[in-house]
């Protein structure tokens, strides 16, 4: 089974699932909302091995054995069932459900794009300053970005990501248009960006730890070229077109991908000697 895990309103993931099904894939869509109302979640860690079984309200079974590959677009933990709870209880449950979901998706033996990271379930999400530094180092055209208390007087946003977007807009000029690229494992699909952007993207992806990830890249295209404006672990998959669908189906087919680093049995270590 190819599992597409996404939010209920993730039209991009639903588009991919439809295309994958049309291509003959055994594709199952599970929304984080449906996951929130699962009948069973069972996650075991035993001697280095990890086993998980999930049974949804409609009877769908998601065991490690059932799941071949995963398109993971879960940016939020499955908390829909808690939305009317008291804030303190809801916050506690959200943290616990984040912890469970992260561990489950991290441990899945088959290919996952994107495998979750501790600070973002949907995959690599770097601080905008880190992406700016990486963009400069990789050779992507990128503006200098300023952020801080001096911007308060100018009414600038409290969000560093918006500071990057604003700097890019200034660099690209008033006639700039937004461009969204989808990058899978360092390769842009569905679009051929101009140089020097094309040559720098693979190195950029590696520098932000997304060399084996599905990544959205935003640019503003002005008369003098493209300017880097941000990244996302949740790209609009439609921008990648059929080329992306086929590349993802290849990556997410278990037989085509080496299994992720599996947990090795713990070495028997001698007990420390009291001093």
């Amino acid at each position: 089974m190819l599992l597409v895990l996404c939010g209920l309103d993730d039209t991009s993931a639903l588009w991919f699932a439809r295309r994958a099904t049309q291509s003959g894939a055994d594709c199952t869509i599970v929304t984080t909302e449906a996951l929130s109302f699962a009948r069973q979640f069972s996650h075991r860690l035993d001697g280095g091995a990890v086993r998980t079984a999930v049974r949804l309200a409609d009877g769908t079974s998601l065991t490690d054995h059932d799941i071949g590959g995963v398109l993971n677009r879960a940016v939020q933990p499955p908390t829909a069932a808690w939305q009317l709870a008291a804030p303190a209880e809801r916050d506690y449950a959200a943290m616990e459900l984040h912890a469970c979901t992260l561990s489950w998706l991290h441990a899945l033996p088959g290919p996952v794009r994107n495998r979750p990271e501790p600070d973002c379930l949907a995959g690599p999400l770097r601080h905008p300053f880190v992406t700016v530094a990486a963009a400069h180092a990789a050779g992507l055209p990128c503006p200098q970005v300023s952020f801080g208390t001096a911007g308060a007087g100018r009414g600038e946003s409290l969000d560093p990501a918006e500071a990057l977007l604003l700097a890019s807009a200034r660099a690209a000029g008033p006639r700039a248009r937004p461009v969204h690229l989808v990058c899978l494992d360092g390769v842009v699909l569905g679009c051929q960006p101009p140089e020097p952007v094309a040559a720098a993207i693979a190195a950029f992806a590696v520098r932000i730890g997304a060399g084996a990830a599905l990544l959205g890249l935003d640019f503003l295209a002005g008369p003098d070229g493209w300017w880097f404006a941000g990244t996302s672990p949740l790209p609009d998959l439609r921008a990648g077109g059929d080329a992306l669908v086929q590349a993802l189906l290849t990556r997410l087919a278990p037989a085509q991908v080496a299994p992720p680093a599996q947990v090795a049995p713990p070495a028997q270590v001698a007990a420390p000697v009291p001093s």
Partner: protein
Amino acid sequence: MTVLLWGVPTEPPMAMVAGQLAELGADVLVVRPGGIGQQADVTIGAALSGTIRAAGRSVELDGVTGAYLRPVEPELVPELAGQPATAMAHARRVQEALTGFTEAAPGANGCRVANRLSAMASNGSKPYQAQVIARHGFSSPDTLITTEPDEVLDFAARHQQVVYKSCSGIRSIVTAFDPVADAGRLPRLRWCPVQFQERVMGPDVRVHVVGEQVFAVIVDSAAVDYRYARSQVGTDARLRAYRLDDDIAARCVALAAALDLPFAGIDLKLAADQRVVCFEVNPSPGFSWYESSTGLPIARAVARWLLGPGAK
């Protein structure tokens, strides 16, 4: 060169590191979370630059070579309560600027940061951390996280003793599970999975990793959770310095490095069956209790690490 201390100055770990930096003659700038009148401006491009203004002076960011972080959210700072919304927005802007600086600085200019906030996130999922821990050759306790009451009872039947605790970064008191007394509460699991673990018997060892140095403390207590020993068993836990086996020490250093944590508190248990069980890696260890109980020079090591390899 300046060392940035970002946290509550009177909090013991922050105060102890500040004291050691002062003894070493370091230039220190303390930025208090939510501090009134502070400013921070960061510019990043091919280089990282900017200015922080705090404690009555300004410091250029390209001169900041080390940073020790224990910030709290501005919304939790008492002195901001009752202030106009602009004061909170200003504090939030300082927070965001310093977060951006400390995230980018290690890669941009080699600044030593203990620890980046993004690296602290791994502690938000204990079972995720357990997978990383297992790859470094430590045992993990047999663990079940479930919404199924029957699975819990089966799990409890297979182990002599079972405990339950949060699996996220939210602090919880480790509590013994009683299949009889707790039976009535088990149906609540349907709403949110709960983490159950075999109770591993044996002494606890807290290992503080600072760069490539380790400082281990062994704990003598009969409590399920020795941090709460007085309330659980009537007497405080007793701590003493402990010499770790070199191989285990090396594993601890490698584990902290894998989690991008130059400063970490690793919780071990020396099981009776010779397993060395690792429960978690704390990314912002409150080490002051361990240091004051044993005399181990943890704060000194953190201060030296922040100053870099040339520090005396």
